[in-house]
């Protein structure tokens, strides 16, 4: 269980983008965090991943306090992150990009090789493009590269920010299908998205953030017609 407890965080001291936000992310479940633009959803993910220091509040992994852990140590805790702009290395090839996901066990060549093959069988499209520089790929393909890279280290939790942004609808379907299968494999997913329909299609639990605070939460059925609730609020 990955949990956020009473988080207050912002970019300038005193300017809190998020106030007293708490969410809980069980392993093997997809948790969606929804809300209007600019409400702080991306900020939440950045804070969890250690890129922002919270002024108050804690981040807990299986009840252990991991607040303040540096981003490059998150992989050791089994937490991976996909920012709004897919974090790929544009001048490296697809294969190099994915392989870098195995940075922590890079000396074990066989393991790298094995995981690469695993990823290629899961994402045949990447195998076809293994030698292309990642920079020429489309938005959807970049997301796939990023996900493949993340999978190299068998994460337990994945924080992903707007997986369908800048991605053509059909490709977005593929991305979400992948997320779904990750969830089924036991990865806990924290999903932030503007695309409510898609998010709801795989979410097990939803938090709605408004003006930096928890507003509503529940399973998709419990929340009912989000569209009206959210827009008129």
């Amino acid at each position, binding site marked *: 269980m990955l949990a956020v407890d009473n988080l207050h965080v912002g970019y300038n001291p005193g300017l809190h983008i998020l106030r007293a936000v708490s969410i809980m992310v069980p392993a093997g479940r997809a948790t969606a965090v929804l809300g209007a633009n600019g409400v702080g959803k991306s900020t939440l993910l950045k804070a969890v*991943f250690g*890129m922002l220091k919270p002024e108050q509040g804690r981040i807990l992994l299986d009840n252990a306090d991991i607040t303040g852990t*540096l*981003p*490059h*140590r*998150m*992989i*050791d805790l089994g937490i*991976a*992150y*996909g*920012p709004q702009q897919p*974090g*790929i*290395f*544009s*001048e*490296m090839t697809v294969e*190099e990009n994915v392989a*870098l*996901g195995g*940075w*922590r066990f*890079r000396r074990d060549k066989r393991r790298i090789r094995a995981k690469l093959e695993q990823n290629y069988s899961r994402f045949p499209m990447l195998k076809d493009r293994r030698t292309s520089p990642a920079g020429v790929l489309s938005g959807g393909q970049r997301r796939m590269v*990023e996900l493949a*890279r*993340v999978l190299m*280290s068998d994460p337990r939790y994945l924080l992903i920010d707007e997986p369908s942004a800048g991605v053509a609808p059909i490709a977005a379907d593929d991305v979400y299908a992948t997320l779904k299968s990750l969830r089924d494999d036991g990865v806990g997913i924290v999903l932030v998205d503007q695309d409510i329909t898609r998010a709801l299609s795989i979410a097990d639990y939803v938090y709605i953030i408004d003006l930096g605070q928890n507003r509503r939460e529940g399973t998709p059925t419990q929340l009912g017609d989000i569209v009206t609730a959210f827009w008129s609020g």
Partner: protein
Amino acid sequence: MAPGVIWLLLAGPVWSALGAILLPRRYRTARRDPQLAGLAGGFWGAALGPFALAPLYVAVPVLRRDLHVVVPAVLLSSELLALFAHANPRNVCVTDPLYVLNQVQTGLTVGLLYATMAAGLTLIYSVQRIISFTHGQFVMFGGVLTFLLLRDLDLNPIFMMPVVAIAAFVLGVMIAKFLLKPVQAGTIERPDEYAILMTFGVGIFLTYALVGVLGNPIAVRAARYTDRPLFGIDRAILEFAGMRMRTDLFIAGAIGLMIFAALSFLLYCTWTGRSFRAVSMDRHAAAVVGIDPGAVFLWAFGIGTALASLAGAALVPAFNFQVPEMAAQTAIRSYVIVVLGGLGSLRGALLGALFLGVVEALTAGCYPDPSKGATYQVTSGLLVFLAVLLVRPQGFFGRAET
């Protein structure tokens, strides 16, 4: 010189100044983008005088950087070369093409070592966006250390390289760790000012510590490669197809090429190198896969300074190192090259270095007064610097910073 030549010389700058002042004004009143107008006016005015300025003034066309700045610049360069040839008909560069070729060859060879220096600078920059002002000093450090070691040891200079590399690496890492930490950690308000002043200070310290060790500002030159020959190479001059080259220079160039190749191998074929490139492309994504940006910075700085020192170590058997003057000059060369090639680009560093090497060699070789040629060698670098900064600030291969 003929009065016609004098007239030509005076007119160029006059038209250039007129163009640089009047054209932007015209563009502003015509409600068109005046930004490039100054440069374009200056270059077209110098190249073709009123014949180019008049149509621009009247028609006020949309200006493009490549068309209206590069073209007249090239035109102007050709005119200046023609003028030079005309004014100095007995200059050896004009009469003897083989000599020119020889100079070019020398330039390319030295360029390989410049590339090594510049590669170090560009590596540091791509990882942390710091331009190190100690770079020239580390080249000098490599040379002086080699010189001192070879005074007592009777070995071929090549064997000093590992020692120099390790010493420089250690120094570099210590500087990065203790002095530049605030920049890397983001705890300082004005990181760029701090980096400039700090690396400048380290440079002064290093320069005068070296002079102190040597005792006086002197010119050092280590034993030549051919003095303590390896593989029996002891001929001082190599001859090939009518061209002559000093063996020492050739060996130095070969070493430079090997170092550069090793660096490319490191960056493109090893995990460590990939981690450097990853951090330079996307810091956050690198952190996601577990790469520690702080550690990468230390490594990159260490390797960068090691590269500079290796270049110095390779050059000192072939050239005199004027301690401490050469520090500033070498530093300037490195900066010109990385600006020329684009900060962050290894390929750019190589090509920029070769280009600068050739320009310098030709300046030194063709300058009418041979005693001043060596001095103006470095000046040519400044002119190249200026030109690049004005025409294409991101260099030829760099990424344009938005």
